[in-house]
């Protein structure tokens, strides 16, 4: 994933160079064979299910489709999902930039430990990510009695859902920035400092412009996961309709209630959000490719 934004662009030129020389050209059979295999795989495992979602969603017509989306519980789920994403993405943006900055620009003890810790949410199962919050903030958890005395709710309420979302989307921005900033080194910042720039000036005018596309790419991935997260959120949600159900949880509930058209309608909205994310991602990759080419010239 790291640095993918800059690398992917230009792969077309690369492939064309290979194809133009007889020595590196694969036989036609191999070429079409590989193409057929990957396209079949893509069609069966990715495209077909995606199409099914939309077909099932519209099976009972547009009226049912829109009714499912404006129904109060569905609307509450949509708002909660967007709220959780709107809080967790900016938080992780700030954290990710700070962590990447600290790791690539400074030398300090425990740096490798920090890098490992940033990756933790990737390696831990989402169910565990949810359970840790129940164990810490639940009624029998460490802070449970204190929270209850002060009439504050964390788990089985919106704060718990936001916390779980922040946790699972923790690594995306930092993981995207660290290799990029490492590759760029400190030369430009050092030059800026020599020329009299202050800390913030260096950051705004030198560092940030250099990493902006990588940063945006990380934010997009972070947002996609924040909206789609199921496991961790399911554990801390308490499943109260209209209050603590996010879109993925609402889809499950509708499906379990035999409301298949409605379940797929909400699922299709989630899929649409994902497709929009993909389009933005492609655009970012394109821009990143352009800007990296410019800087090479």
């Amino acid at each position, binding site marked *: 994933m790291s640095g993918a934004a800059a690398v992917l662009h230009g792969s077309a030129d690369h492939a064309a160079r290979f194809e133009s020389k007889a020595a590196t050209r694969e036989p036609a059979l191999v070429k079409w064979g590989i193409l057929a295999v990957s396209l079949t795989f893509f069609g069966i495992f990715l495209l077909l299910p995606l199409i099914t979602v939309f077909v099932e969603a519209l099976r009972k017509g547009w009226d049912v489709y829109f009714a499912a989306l404006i129904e109060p519980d569905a609307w509450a789920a949509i708002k909660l999902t967007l709220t959780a994403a709107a809080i967790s993405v900016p938080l992780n943006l700030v954290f990710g930039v700070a962590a990447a900055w600290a790791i690539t620009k400074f030398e300090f003890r425990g740096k490798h430990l920090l890098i490992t810790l940033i990756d933790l949410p990737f390696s831990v199962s989402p169910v565990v990510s949810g359970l840790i919050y129940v164990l810490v903030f639940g009624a029998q958890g460490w802070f449970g009695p204190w929270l209850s005395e002060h009439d504050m709710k964390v788990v089985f309420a919106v704060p718990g859902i936001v916390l779980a979302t922040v946790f699972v989307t923790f690594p995306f921005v930092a993981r995207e920035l660290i290799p990029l900033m490492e590759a760029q080194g400190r030369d430009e910042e050092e030059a800026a400092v020599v020329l009299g720039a202050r800390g913030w000036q260096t950051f705004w005018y030198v560092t940030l412009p250099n990493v902006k596309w990588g940063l*945006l790419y990380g934010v997009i991935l972070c947002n996609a996961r924040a909206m789609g997260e199921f496991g961790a959120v399911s554990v801390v949600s308490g499943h109260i309709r209209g209050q603590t159900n996010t879109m993925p949880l609402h889809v499950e509930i509708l499906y379990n209630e035999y409301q298949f058209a409605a379940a797929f309608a909400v699922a299709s909205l989630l899929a649409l959000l994902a497709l929009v994310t993909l389009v933005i991602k492609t655009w970012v990759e394109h821009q990143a490719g352009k800007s990296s080419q410019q800087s090479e010239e």
Partner: protein
Amino acid sequence: MSPTRAALRPVLTLLAGLMVLPAVPALADATLLNVSYDVSRELYKDINPAFIAQWQRTAKEKLTINQSHGGSSKQVQAVASGLEADVVTMNQTPDINVLARQGLVAADWQKAFPHGAAPYTTNTIFLVRKGNPKGIKDWSDLVRPGLQVIVPNPKTSGNGRYTYLAAWGYALQKTGSDAGARDFVTKLFANVPVLDGGGRGATTTFTQRDIGDVLITFENEAVLIDQEVGGDKFDVVYPSLSIEAAAPVAVVSKVVDKRGTRKQATAYLNFLFSPEGQEIIAKHHFRPVDPAILKKYSSRFPAVKTFTVEGKLGGWDAVQRTHFADGGVYDQIVVKR
């Protein structure tokens, strides 16, 4: 302005816009949270508006009732961990006993409402594919080699627990010994290809994923499947002996005292025992405890010979200890597979 800031501006504006969306809908005067088991969703969808209307008439107060559903033991775990349920409506006594032991529910909760605080019962029956191609008539047919039986997990769902106990009770009656019962139940669970977490999950496995020859589930769930998924695809089979599954309810004292909702919560549960509540219950194919209402809907409820956990198996505490505790008979049987 730097190019970076210019590029990020629309993104930031969008995020700022999303922030102001209210996360929680506006609250009415009083709210109740009913934490319930998996397959009672449709019932409370009808009970709640009826009670809200009645409460508006009698107490002149606007009430909102929120619902949460899932596998019963999982739901109880959530309540024990701090999910603020005003009332719990479960499908087996042990679940509420867990809350009673933690002091969330009064120790004598079964005396707080009529009929041992259970407004309805149901029993465990079979659902087979149309025309009953495997000729399944009774429990004894379920242990035939090669047959696939769908049952929810007895560890996490009351539905699965009743299935296990119903099979045990049947074999106990037939063989007359615990060893015989154990042998029978072992053979039965050897035929289970998937153990779903809750009753509804098992239903989906059987009806949507087309796995299994027979689904063992509650009567109300089986009848609901018949109506919702299509009556031309399944048949309901009543075994010669079944278990009576009483669905107990309780007020969560600790929560209602804190939130000041004891009055509403108690009235809500009492409504379940009223003729109006019992009618709604009967319409959802749960067997009402009110004899008059049961008689009125007798065409919906074929006579079934049933036994109870208290009557035949020595009560829930004993059953919990011998069968479902860690390392108990159920664990031993599943490990043997």
